[in-house]
């Protein structure tokens, strides 16, 4: 059995005194696409931030490529090969589109993804390359955010709500690029509100409810009913 690319065991996460995650187990293999679903505030973003080092996992079990890396910082995670497309895109407003993309390569990891290849999968950005990051449509901003993360040539790409606030047509375009990213051997974690979208693109899903893992499995083996219960927690009400 091959070892997982990334694994966390009994992960807790805190914002100050507020505990957002309670003993979460999560793992992903190098050839997987995983979708994380759950209601607003369930802890999906918190999990991604913990994996990417934006929230400290100090003293906890986070195993990357077989090595114990609990408590790594964001810059260490990126340099090791974990890139995050943050919620809300978080482009650098005073940098141009091209500069935003180049900033993503700051960690110095070399690989398939270069400025030219990003412009190849997101041709809309070519004409806007000298625009400020903020002077773009929402979809284009999301493309820059994804491109910027890819510029780090990650082994694992974490995508937080990449369809948030975008028109369905744009969402479809962006999701069409995911197979292209997978082709380069990059594992994907996608946080998605839209359950159908999540089931369509993923090999496995995790459902988080109030900071705890409520369900995991492949789209094929999970029933609609199970997912709805895990998502909204209706089981407790029914009992």
């Amino acid at each position, binding site marked *: 059995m091959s070892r997982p690319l990334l694994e966390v065991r009994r992960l807790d996460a805190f914002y100050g005194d507020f505990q957002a995650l309670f003993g979460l187990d999560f793992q992903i293999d190098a050839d997987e696409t995983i979708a994380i679903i759950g209601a607003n505030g369930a802890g999906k973003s918190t999990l991604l931030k913990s994996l*990417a*080092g*934006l929230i400290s996992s100090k003293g906890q079990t986070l195993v990357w490529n077989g090595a114990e890396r609990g408590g790594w*910082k*964001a*810059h260490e995670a*990126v*340099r090791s090969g974990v*890139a*995050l497309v*943050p919620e809300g895109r*978080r482009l*650098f*407003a*005073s*940098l141009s589109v091209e*500069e935003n993309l*180049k*900033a*993503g390569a*700051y*960690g*110095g*990891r070399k690989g398939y993804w270069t400025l030219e290849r990003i412009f190849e999968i997101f041709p809309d950005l070519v004409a806007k390359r000298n625009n400020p990051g903020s002077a773009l449509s929402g979809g284009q901003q999301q493309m820059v955010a994804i491109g*910027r*993360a890819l510029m*780090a040539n990650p082994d694992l790409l974490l995508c937080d709500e990449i369809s948030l606030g975008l028109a369905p047509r744009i969402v479809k375009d962006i999701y069409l690029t995911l197979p292209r990213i997978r082709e380069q051997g990059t594992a994907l974690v996608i946080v998605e509100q839209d359950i159908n979208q999540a089931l369509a693109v993923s090999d496995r899903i995790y459902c988080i409810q109030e900071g705890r893992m409520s369900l995991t499995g492949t789209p094929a083996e999970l029933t609609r009913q199970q997912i709805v219960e895990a998502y909204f927690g209706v089981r407790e009400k029914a009992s």
Partner: protein
Amino acid sequence: MIWVNAIVQGVLLGGLYALFAAGLSLMFGVMRFVNLAHGDFIVVAAYLTLVVCDTTGVNPFVAILLIVPIMGAAGYALQRFLFNRVLGQDILPPVLVTFGLSIIIQNALLNYYGANGRKVTVGALDTASINFGPELAIGSLPVLTFVVAVSIIALIGFISYRTGIGRMLRATADDPETVGLMGANNAHTFAIATMIAAAVVAIAGGLFAMRTNFDPSAGPVRLLFAFEAVIIGGLGSLWGTLAGGIALGIAQTVGGQIDPRFQLLAGHLIFLVILAVRPQGLFSRRTS
């Protein structure tokens, strides 16, 4: 013609003020760090220039070239091991720490060098000037200072807009959390910003030492000039800082032409007028 002379002198003086301000502006811009010891750093650089000249006998300009890397390295270390510890949401700890540092520096300098005014002489360049008639003479050293100031500001602009680390400095100014996701270690990026600021301070302090007398207590006034130049020019604007320095310099020399006692006051008044009329500064990119 004496007014033309006053304005020309003011412009040239403004170059020095812009150099005073550039480092302060850079540190505030990148990490919202207010360095109250900035003026004292300038004075330290002035003393370093003096010491290097006195002990080795080299030309003061060579001395500046020697202290630039020393000050830069010290700036990096100071940020990495002291200032980074007090950086956070609260603006007060950096202010307190640098205020304390300012007192320490002033007293250390007083202890070693005494309270006497000192100056670095540059030989014939001290008095060399280009004359344009009886009432207009432009000193060679002020011209040189101005040229250096413009070059340094252009160089900072080049670093900010054309290099990877400069891009990261600007990105850090935008969003210090997200730059971590780019693989940048903030502790290092901040230290680089302070290193550049300290290197500029080394040049500013060296030129300052050649221009006028200085003593251990000269720092706070330089800090004030630097603040005024930054505010007049507009926070975050590189060339605005030069414009702010020039505006301050002109106000001082024209004020001094009216009445020598009016010199410093005129500079402060211009600063207050700008604050009242255009609080975002002449060239601010942030208008809201």
